[in-house]
């Protein structure tokens, strides 16, 4: 049974003052359904990804909220796995389709983050860490420990880390929905405000509003992108119980599963949307996904091996850093973006990599024309 992406949509990402969460979810779903040449009543079930609407605006029960956007109130399920909520909702939808229960479903991910202060957002996002053993942590702090470890172990340099942000901002210039349309330099990243050393403001993905949706079906639709397979792996929620601070074992595991299920090789992938919540996260991702040897991700980036004309295009959308990171939307946006990317012929096969927390959850999807 083959799962196909028969429609997809991404809203603009950014500070969307005039849009609330339900409008974002509704906009994305309606556009995706329209792109699929379907009507709303063709949707048999909805899988909604969201990390923290309960904290941001005291709105739970999102499955009920999205279901009532359809005249026939289809069954709906909300899925949360911190920043991997989007890809986790994808997995829930895929398993439902593979079970034969449904033939056509919508996956929508969205987050409305900009109504609260930066400090409150820091607090809400820190909920993805272990609140028993990681008291006082912030996401920048956890990834700062990872960055320092990677720099100390492999000699990854400040400039190499900054090169990730520079590249992703450049890629975002061609993505109309991206939050930032502004190129930056290595010097600007290096001199931006210190958040948790060595990570600076421009090492960090922004706070964003936005949503994305895909329509998945097991019905044959000619020319549609195939969702070939996925991998899903876990590791400890806290850093202190990890076997390594410089490798996400969950990413390695998810990649192994995805390649095994699809039978593809890494060389057959032309692009990958990876989880660059922080610049160092992209460096780990491209190493742990096996595109570059461990410790070489920084050098590969600064040597332009991960942009157009290089070995593989990493984060053609601009990634979380430049496209934006409405947390629950990201995993779905990666799929939606790669669907469009493949449909317009920019790649034959591509990979989406979505991570929860400081590496405790990792999901890899492989798409192919």
């Amino acid at each position: 049974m083959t799962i196909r992406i028969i429609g997809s949509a991404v809203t603009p990402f950014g500070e969307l003052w005039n849009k609330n969460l339900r409008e974002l979810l509704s906009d994305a779903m309606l556009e995706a359904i329209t792109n699929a040449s379907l009507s709303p009543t063709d949707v048999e079930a909805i899988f909604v990804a969201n990390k923290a609407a309960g904290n941001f605006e005291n709105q739970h029960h999102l499955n009920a909220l999205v279901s009532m956007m359809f005249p026939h109130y289809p069954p709906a399920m909300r899925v949360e796995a911190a920043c991997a909520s989007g890809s986790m909702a994808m997995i829930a939808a895929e398993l439902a389709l593979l079970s034969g229960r449904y033939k056509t479903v919508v996956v929508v991910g969205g987050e409305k983050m900009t109504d609260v202060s930066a400090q409150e957002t820091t607090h809400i996002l820190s909920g993805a860490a272990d609140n028993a053993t990681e008291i006082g942590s912030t996401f920048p702090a956890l990834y700062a420990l990872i960055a320092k470890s990677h720099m100390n172990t492999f000699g990854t340099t400040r400039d190499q880390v900054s090169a990730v942000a520079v590249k992703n901002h450049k890629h975002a210039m061609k993505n109309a929905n991206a939050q930032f349309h502004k190129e930056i330099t290595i010097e600007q990243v290096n001199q931006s405000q210190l958040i948790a050393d060595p990570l600076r403001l421009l090492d960090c993905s922004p706070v964003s509003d936005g949503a994305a949706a895909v329509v998945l079906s097991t019905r044959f639709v000619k020319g549609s992108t195939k969702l070939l397979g996925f991998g899903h792996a876990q590791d400890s929620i806290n850093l202190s119980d990890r076997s390594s601070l410089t490798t996400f074992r969950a990413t390695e595991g998810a990649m192994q599963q995805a390649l095994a299920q699809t039978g593809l090789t890494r060389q057959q992938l032309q692009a990958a949307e990876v989880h660059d919540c922080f610049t160092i996260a992209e460096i780990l991702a491209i190493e742990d996904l096996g595109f570059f040897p461990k410790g070489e991700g920084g050098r590969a980036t600064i040597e332009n091996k991960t942009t157009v004309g290089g070995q593989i295009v990493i984060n053609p959308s601009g990634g979380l850093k430049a496209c934006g990171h409405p947390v629950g939307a990201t995993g779905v946006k990666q799929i939606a973006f790669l669907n469009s990317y493949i449909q317009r012929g920019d790649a034959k096969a591509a990979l989406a990599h979505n991570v929860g927390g400081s590496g405790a959850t990792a999901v890899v999807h492989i798409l192919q024309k």
Partner: protein
Amino acid sequence: MQPARYWRDNKTWKVWVGKRGTVVVSTVVTVSSPEHAAFQPYSYVLVNFGTQQHEFMGSGHETFQEGDKVECALRKITSGDDRSLIGYGIKVKKVT
């Protein structure tokens, strides 16, 4: 800090007070959650205690390097207003 959560957590303090370890890696947090804002900037430290690792906030505004010897001590871990229950917990301080 909520009273029931405080009461459950205070049973764990005795496990750590006085325990010594070595810093694996450390960072300085300059933007934190509101309940830790009064302590900014503070260190966030991964410590190797021999049989296990654990992450703790650094005491006061101390900064740490890899290899520093540290000891766990009772400190305030949350800052609230003058009506709230004071959140005590474990932080690490350098051992000389």
